[in-house]
């Protein structure tokens, strides 16, 4: 019967010939081994090596003297204290703001949710200076609002200004976290509480809030890491409020004291890493909110004025501030000196688009475009290996992949400068030439792409992991059982299924690459100019108009990319069949 349908010579499955045997693979799946080795190698080069090198330098005699003086030397103690203080304040405030925005978004009834959502995400797609420069223009000594409207001379330089700007810049992280968590809260819990006689406020305090505590704790810790790692804002409006990141920067850039830079980096690395670890492995385990499966129904939106009005007022206030900031960025680019001389001019845009800025714009976009697919795919690949394929080593690979996010950018940047400015020699052999610095191959562009990848892959990885955890592993096994190797399974089954996570990963990778500054300032080169570091130069020299123009163009580039990516993903050939 078989023969009538399948001529023996072309028998695809090999069942009609008695000599056919299961093909003896050389042991287990080779493509899996290859993937693991390639990923592990990539990670150790883009994250591992710089970290190891910076630790080596920090523990050298010169570096160690600074590290050990961290608590004894009053100046260093002050810097350390400033850093911690800033981190604590911003993480609490940012989480609070993020919570208000998320709660309003998920639970309150009002019009314009979509707009509020977009506004809440705006700071993620913009370069770090946009808010800081706008804040100085609006709320500085001679600020258009602080002085112009209220006649006040506010001292925005220092802790106050940093708190304001960092909170506004980082609350979206908390917003995203808490929004997801609020959405996955099973509304039947609310219904149960209501059924037992609790009113809305009581439900909020006795059910909603306790369920969210792990999420809130997680956001606080994440924001702490982000805010102590921030370099751009302390440089622009730190005043005499020095933090570890800006101190490390000054040591390396101003004094060429690499050992000092490494030492401050180490001190910065310790709290960042430990807080990150706590967030990752402790808080996430305490998470009581079930993230698998859809909630049973949609929660009843809150209309009770006692909760709704104060929450909405706060949300609208925050949203207005964000809008104000970005309006300033946009308008500021078109006037001579915003607030001083408000004559219309195109000079700033001409400077960016036709002058030296166009070079930086092109290079940055190109490098980000190269880094984005690598980071996106690598993130998904790591997620897949971690969730599906690796057993004992999965925790390690997950951790190393996340390091790009956990390690402050300043530390990565200094690590790159130390590790890659010279050819990498190991065991008496040169493994690859210098990849960072102006004299490196490709004008240092490769190191920048590597930094972009290292910095932006963790988000894709996280998204990929949570997406994969919701997909039945039997689907992978089904592909295997039908003859697919690990790589084929990943390509034909896994990747299409976690497409939304990949999309998120790509989007974030591009945005992050375009807007990252702290590691980049240490490795830009004459041949490879990066927009953020150009903006830093403009801001530092006080040419805010140029900075505004840069920021606006950068935001436009990022938004266009996101738009195009979403359009492309909608295309049927890519989309495949939509899942439920």
């Amino acid at each position: 019967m078989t023969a009538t349908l399948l001529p023996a010579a072309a028998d695809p499955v090999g069942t009609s010939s008695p000599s056919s045997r299961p093909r003896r693979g050389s042991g287990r799946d080779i493509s899996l081994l290859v993937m693991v080795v390639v990923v592990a190698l990539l990670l150790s080069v883009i994250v591992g090596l710089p970290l190891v090198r910076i630790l080596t330098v920090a523990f050298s005699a010169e570096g160690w003297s600074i590290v050990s003086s961290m608590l004894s030397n009053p100046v260093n103690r002050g810097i350390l204290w400033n850093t911690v203080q800033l981190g604590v304040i911003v993480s609490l405030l940012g989480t609070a703001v993020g919570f208000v925005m998320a709660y309003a978004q998920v639970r309150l009834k009002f019009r314009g949710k979509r707009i509020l959502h977009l506004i809440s995400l705006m700071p993620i797609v913009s370069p770090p200076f946009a808010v800081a420069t706008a804040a100085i223009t609006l709320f500085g000594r001679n600020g258009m609002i602080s002085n112009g409207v209220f006649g006040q001379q506010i001292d925005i330089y220092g802790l106050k200004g940093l708190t304001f700007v960092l909170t506004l810049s980082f609350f979206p992280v908390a917003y995203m976290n808490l929004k997801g968590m609020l959405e996955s809260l099973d509304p039947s819990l609310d219904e149960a509480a209501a059924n037992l006689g609790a009113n809305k406020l009581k439900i909020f305090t006795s059910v909603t809030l306790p369920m969210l505590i792990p999420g809130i704790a997680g956001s606080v810790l994440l924001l702490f890491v982000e805010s102590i790692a921030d370099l751009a804002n302390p440089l622009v409006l730190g005043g005499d409020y020095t933090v570890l990141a800006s101190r490390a920067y000054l040591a390396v850039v101003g004094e060429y004291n690499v050992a000092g830079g490494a030492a401050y980096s180490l001190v910065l690395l310790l709290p960042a890493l430990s807080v990150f670890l706590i967030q990752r492995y402790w808080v996430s385990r305490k998470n009581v909110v079930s993230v698998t499966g859809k909630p049973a129904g949609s929660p009843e939106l809150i209309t009770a004025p006692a909760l709704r009005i104060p929450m909405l007022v706060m949300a609208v206030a925050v949203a207005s501030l964000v809008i104000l900031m970005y309006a300033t960025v946009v308008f500021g680019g078109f006037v001579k000196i915003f607030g001083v001389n408000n004559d219309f001019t195109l000079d700033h845009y001409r400077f960016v688009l036709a002058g030296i800025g166009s070079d930086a714009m092109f290079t940055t976009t190109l490098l980000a475009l190269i880094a984005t697919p690598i980071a996106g795919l690598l993130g998904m690949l790591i997620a897949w290996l971690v969730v599906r394929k690796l057993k004992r080593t999965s925790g390690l690979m997950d951790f190393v992949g996340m390091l790009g996010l956990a390690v402050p950018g300043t530390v990565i940047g200094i690590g790159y400068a130390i590790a890659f400015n010279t050819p990498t020699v190991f065991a008496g052999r040169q493994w690859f030439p210098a990849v960072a610095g102006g004299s490196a191959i490709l004008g240092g562009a490769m190191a920048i792409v590597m930094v972009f990848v290292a910095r932006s892959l963790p988000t894709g990885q996280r998204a990929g992991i949570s997406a994969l955890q919701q997909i039945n592993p039997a689907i992978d096994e089904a592909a295997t059982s039908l003859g697919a190797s690990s790589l084929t399974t990943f390509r034909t089954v896994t990747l299409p299924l976690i497409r939304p996570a990949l999309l998120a990963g790509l989007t974030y990778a591009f945005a992050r690459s375009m807007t990252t500054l702290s590691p980049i300032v240490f490795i830009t080169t004459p041949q490879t100019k990066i927009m953020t570091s150009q903006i830093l130069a403009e801001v530092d020299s006080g040419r805010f108009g140029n900075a505004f123009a840069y920021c606006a163009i950068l935001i436009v580039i990022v938004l266009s990319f996101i738009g195009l990516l979403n359009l492309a993903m909608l295309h049927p050939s890519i989309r495949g069949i939509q899942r439920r």
Partner: protein
Amino acid sequence: MPRTRTSALLLTLPLGVTALLAGCAVEETPTTTSSSSSSAGGSIKGTGEVVVACTPQEEQCQAMAAAFTKASGIKTSFVRMSSGEGVARLDAAKSKPEFDVLYGGPSDGHVAAFNSGLIEPYVSANAAAIPDKYKDKDGKWTGTYVGVLGFCSNKDQLTKAGVSAAPSSWAELLDPKLKKQVAIAHPSTSGTSYTAVWTQMVLNGMDEAKTFDYLGKLHQNVLQYSKSGSAPGQMAGRGEVAVGVIFSHDCVKYQKEGFDMLESTFPSEGSGYEIGAVSVVKGGPNAENAKKFIDWTLTPDHQDIGPTVGSFQIPTHPEAKITEDMVKLDEVKLVEYDSLAAGEKKKELTAKFDAEVAPAPKE
């Protein structure tokens, strides 16, 4: 497993593209240039490229690079950074320099760089035309412009702070009314700021303790130490502070850009000045072109560019044009500025400033 192989290729594709694209973006650096021992006095025409660490303001760097590219045919690229930062970058890449020329910034920075073994002495034939006081006889550095340190004050902001007239002495800068109303750059990163520190050394008879006593008092009035030397002028212009301590030519530039409330004054005790210098980076990738570039900067062709882009430093070449907006050197009291001594003490003094002055608390 042919399918596996294609997939593996697919995954490595982005990496390949990286290499390809980046390869296109950067032009091949010629490893050897013309073997002529010196191009001094000869034609500045050449091929290939030259990479400049450029410390004046961005516009000036751009105009300068464009003019040299046009005049010589040598592709000129630059990175704008403050002079301290520039020296740090040279130090960082000492084993394989990425720059050919250190352009601008006070000569003491060049001296410090030379002492760190980062500078190759070069006596340009064109240096003959430059007055002796504006050049090092061994060619460690050669001056191409002169700038005088001054106070750049915002008249409106002064009024608000209750100060009637722009400060005209170092002592007046300590006026308690000016608390957090003064901006100056950090001497680690900025040559401008180090010039101010050294000026205090000179005024205090090289007494470090007295100097730091003054700087400590000034610290109480300083809002923020910026990275780049000219930034305080902008801060004053926007009214963030009342007074910025900067080179007066930068203040003039800001006035021209629209900050008409700015006023430039000079300290009566005596002001420091910079001799904006150029020097050849030791072991730079394009040594011959670096020399051609230096030759060119010592000509009026180059020195006349400044005023066209709003940079009003005084040119060092006697035949270069002097404009109305430039400081009249004979009208300002200048201190005796020994850039050799200043350069030698630079590392020590900035480290001390960084440890003792900058982090001190303010009442």
